[in-house]
């Protein structure tokens, strides 16, 4: 068998694919963050908690109402998105004129409160969530066993990411959004309700986090701190991609998933630091991130 640095190529293919799957989660989450930062200029630290809420509401729907995975995928994002809208309307909206730091503090505080509430109610050891029957099992690809669910994660994440990118970069609605970030007063003068558009955008970003949460529930531990563990990495992804760059966050999300996957083979001890090392290097060479607009 051929080997690269002592690792059989077969195993390497497997790890690349796994990296891509983890990258799907990074991409979904960092996309939501990028949309919110790009259009609202808010660094949404509540994102991890909202991802966690997605997974928990899916669990609650399943255990209390008997609604399965597919229903959750449909119901949960709008529900969590709606809580986001409430947050934007009553709190975030007051902070747009202030420094970034205020938004960051507010969203970080909210994240701690939400996590605390869930921890009080459900404890920390997590809750079981079963996989939809249609997606259990898997296929042997020769170099690895690919569970059907993971294949679905990649596909769904790609569709959602590219769909979002298309709407923002290629449609009329998207052009309004982009214009509103450049010059809100002017866009409003054309008769477009900018504050409402911004509220809905935040709701959409939050819904993306909740969507990722439902996707994660069958394979990761559903626990109050699941988002907090992930969000720091996702922030690094956003910074590397360039704050606010939609395409940047998607590409770096997938890319860093792969880099992390390879680190797990060659030097597993460093697998949770490698992304931050890359972040430091990127910030030194291109302070605005790989895809950010250099100013």
């Amino acid at each position: 068998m051929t080997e690269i640095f002592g690792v059989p190529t077969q195993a390497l293919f497997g790890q690349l694919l796994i990296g891509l799957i983890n990258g799907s989660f990074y991409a979904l989450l960092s996309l939501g963050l990028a949309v919110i930062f790009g259009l609202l200029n808010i660094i949404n630290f509540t994102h991890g908690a909202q991802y966690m809420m997605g997974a928990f509401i899916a669990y609650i729907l399943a255990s209390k109402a008997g609604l399965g995975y597919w229903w959750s995928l449909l119901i949960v994002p709008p529900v969590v998105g709606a809580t986001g809208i409430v947050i934007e309307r009553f709190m975030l909206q007051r902070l747009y004129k202030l420094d970034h730091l205020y938004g960051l503090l507010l969203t970080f505080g909210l994240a701690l409160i939400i996590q605390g509430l869930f921890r009080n109610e459900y404890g920390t050891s997590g809750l079981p969530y079963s996989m939809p029957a249609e997606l259990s099992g898997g296929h042997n690809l020769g170099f690895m066993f690919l569970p059907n669910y993971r294949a679905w994660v990649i596909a769904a994440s790609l569709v959602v990411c590219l769909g979002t990118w298309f709407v923002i970069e290629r449609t009329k609605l998207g052009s309004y959004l982009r214009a509103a970030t450049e010059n809100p007063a002017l866009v409003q003068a054309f008769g477009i309700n900018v504050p409402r558009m911004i509220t809905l955008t935040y709701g959409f970003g939050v819904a993306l986090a909740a969507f990722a949460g439902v996707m994660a529930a069958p394979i990761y531990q559903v626990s109050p701190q699941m988002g907090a563990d992930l969000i720091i990495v996702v922030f690094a992804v956003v910074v590397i991609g360039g704050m606010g760059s939609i395409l940047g966050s998607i590409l770096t999300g997938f890319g860093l998933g792969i880099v992390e996957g390879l680190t797990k083979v060659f030097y597993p001890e460093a697998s949770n630091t490698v992304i931050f090392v890359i972040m430091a290097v990127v910030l030194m060479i291109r302070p605005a991130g790989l895809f950010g607009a250099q100013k």
Partner: protein
Amino acid sequence: MKLKQTLIAAAIAAGFAGAARAQMSDGVVKIGVMSDMSSLYADIGGPGSVIAARMAVDDYLKAHKSSLKVEIVTADHQNKPDVGSQIARQWYDQDKVDAIADVPTSSVALAVADVTKQKNKVFLISGAASSDLTGKACSPNNIHWTYDTWMLANGTGSAIVKTGGDTWFFLTSDYAFGHALERDTEAVVLKNGGKVLGKVRHPLNAQDFSSFLLQAQASKAKIIGLANAGGDTINSIKQAAEFGIVKGGQSLAGMLVFISDIHGIGLEKAQGLIFTETFYWDLNDGTRAWTRRFVEQSKGKYPTMVQAGVYSAVTHYLKSVDAAKTDDAPKVLAQMKAMPSDDPLFGKGTVRKDGRVLHPAYLVEVKKPSESKGPYDYYKVRATIPADQAFRPEKEGGCSLVN
């Protein structure tokens, strides 16, 4: 920082007029329950350990009509050794704490053990697993209840090797506890004629284990040993089921699994898993009755062996304080080691010179969903390992207190 520190007056015993006054440093026996209150190990020890400690105090005072004044304080060490040793210092120096109980996370426990030895107090360990606490790093002030890495390795490891699981691959949590558990299990595997084909060390609190599981799968080892704990174990088992590892003929050995983990994984994915515990709520009438009282206070969560161990340790500590008529640490420690322990949860036990408490352990198997009849009806007890065989022989630990 959120160094939250709640002071709870647990029990103020009615003064027994005329009873002989014991020599208490400040009139009060103060026990500090230090645990992970809010992160990955909080359901293993955490608030449940505080409930257990309070139950121990109440039960002891009531049953023995003792005139001791006992107070319980609690703190969150956030799984950080520096935070843990700082709290311990403050407790001993300023708050007049006499003994610290629980302390999951071996790295924190080792730090707290150092401080306890310096200040010459009592350390009632239940949540930490490293066998070094009564081995290389032993101290006259450590009393180690519940479990340790050697006992887990020996209980689970030798049972599995003897039933044909002779090739192993380790998924190891990359810190003191994981290393100790891997080392102790490897020794048991080799001693019983097995082989270790490989190992991979993952960061604490990792989210995704598929990469590591794939490496384990490629090794073709019959047994994948999970030398990790808490959320890491839950994620490993969930994802191993997903990647068809068990269906492919490899078996998982959870080296440290708690009942709260099984609850979080669900019987569907956890069934058939074999591991070692020292407490299960459904062992006998005593454990069932105690658990009913515990569950009333814990919002329906059933106790783990760590929480039960805190109860048992605090009970024996109070008994020894009463017997020694002082809370002066060296005298209480001598009394704890001289007197056998006895309580409804762990039965009769003895405290060895190196601080190890000897009590029975149980090899359990997780039930199939169809076999489970009620809440937390999760285990079948496959074997009882008697107290004298469950733990590492005193001479093999390398503890300087044993010659």
